[in-house]
């Protein structure tokens, strides 16, 4: 989207300041896993609003359907059965982009403006600028971006940035029948979550808590978890997600250092030539050969 919206916080592969004249409220989606019944209304609403239709898959014996996120599946219920303290629990997590404050995808992206972070916290892919390299996949600590097999563009949840821009809640939050998905100012969502967590603790979930991982600066999609001490229980939600050190090095210090080293080599060569002069064949040898030729 054009920078004219004046509410851009970050833009991929851009080293200068963004136009931020307009400050917007930081938003967040709060997913209360303890209130989710796994109806998949959110998945259906996402498909409908964004007008994307993943291929109909096959039943492989689990409830996850489709089995994984793809270019046309931007959110997915992941079902896990676990036994905690002698009780069988059915944990259902709505997976999708977490909209990190420090987005690894945006850091890794080489194409200016293909990934945008709005000042409200939403991280959006702009396919018009996407070149299809897949670097975003390496940057993401949550394994979210998917590259289409047909058009080679990257896709993921946009947190319905188009709806949010006109004051609407994301389609999934709108469709959720149990109120497990809430949307609003991040501050309000944190506050609301606290009440839910207190309630869960009263009901015996001693380790209930909010998932807003600080390794990526916090996220704009947060979970209320019954077992916040073990996020991995929820279909492998990372304990302490961070941008991979390899990606941080590659898209961090390596960039300016490598260019500086290459520039220094080029300029150094020129100055060597200017100061030392060329390495020429000696006059004596040339004369020697000329004499030989004359013989």
């Amino acid at each position, binding site marked *: 989207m054009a920078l004219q919206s004046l509410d851009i916080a970050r833009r991929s592969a851009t080293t200068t300041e963004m136009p931020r004249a307009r400050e917007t409220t930081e938003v967040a989606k709060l997913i209360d896993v303890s209130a989710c019944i796994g109806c998949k209304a959110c998945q259906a609403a996402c498909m409908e609003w964004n007008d994307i239709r993943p291929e109909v898959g096959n039943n492989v014996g689990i409830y996850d359907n489709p089995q994984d996120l793809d270019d046309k599946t931007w959110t997915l219920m992941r079902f896990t059965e676990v036994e905690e303290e002698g009780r069988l629990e059915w944990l259902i997590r709505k997976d999708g982009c977490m909209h990190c404050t420090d987005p690894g995808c945006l850091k890794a992206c*080489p194409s200016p403006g293909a990934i945008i972070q709005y000042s409200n916290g939403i991280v959006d892919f702009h396919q018009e600028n996407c070149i299809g390299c*897949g670097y975003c*996949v390496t940057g993401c600590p949550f394994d979210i971006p998917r590259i289409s097999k047909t058009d080679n563009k990257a896709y993921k949840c946009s947190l319905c940035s188009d709806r949010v821009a006109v004051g609407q809640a994301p389609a999934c939050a709108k469709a959720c029948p149990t109120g497990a998905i809430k949307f609003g100012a991040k501050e309000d969502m944190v506050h609301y979550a606290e009440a839910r967590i207190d309630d869960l603790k009263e009901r015996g979930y001693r380790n209930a808590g909010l998932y807003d991982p600080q390794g990526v600066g916090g996220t704009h999609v947060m979970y209320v978890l019954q077992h916040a001490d073990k996020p991995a229980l929820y279909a492998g939600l990372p304990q302490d997600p961070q941008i991979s050190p390899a990606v941080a090095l590659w898209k961090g210090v390596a960039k300016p250092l490598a260019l500086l080293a290459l520039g220094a080599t080029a300029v150094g060569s020129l100055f*060597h*030539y200017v100061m030392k002069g060329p390495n020429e064949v000696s006059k004596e040898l040339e004369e020697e050969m000329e004499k030989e030729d004359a013989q």
Partner: protein
Amino acid sequence: MIRNPRDLQRYTASERANHWIVGICFILLALSGLAFFHPALFPLVNLFGGGTWARILHPWIGVVMALFFIIMFFRFACLNLMRGADWDWLSKVGKMVDGNDHDMPEQGKYNGGQKLLFWLLTLCMALIIGSGVVMWRSQFDFPVGLVRTAVVVHAAAAAFMIGLIFVHVYAAIWTRGTIRAMLYGTVTRAWAKQHHRGWYRQMTGKN
């Protein structure tokens, strides 16, 4: 330039063609690769028809370069085996760079610096080809952990290789009478006697 029939043949036509195919591929790969590496250089993708085209073309050009580099490797590997005199030459390279080549040990067809460059370029190419395959998302699907390592290896090896090629090109410009060896194959006898005395003796039978 008037060509002397007694000039010495340094490279055959097919060796030269091979070298320049690799060279052209290298330039195209460096320009498109640097575009993906640093935002300041991203406009270089326009030389290839835009970002998406640069992304599509880069690996295919890489395949061509890899093939011809491998052929070139087998052409020149034997001539580049490091020997005692080469390490001696390298230990004195500071003087050479300073402009004094009088104390340099006698060299065959290639000096220690050229040989070291050959092996470093080979190492870089091996790393770049291996990591490049892992990164080629439209063709392959490797685990993300492996791809993360590959992107760093690819960038580091490529940046180092571009630096090596700067040195390679500058050495050819600095040492007058060298570039013609790769353009039309011959060098003067005086050039050979000064820079590669051992090779000169081998080629002419003279001292």
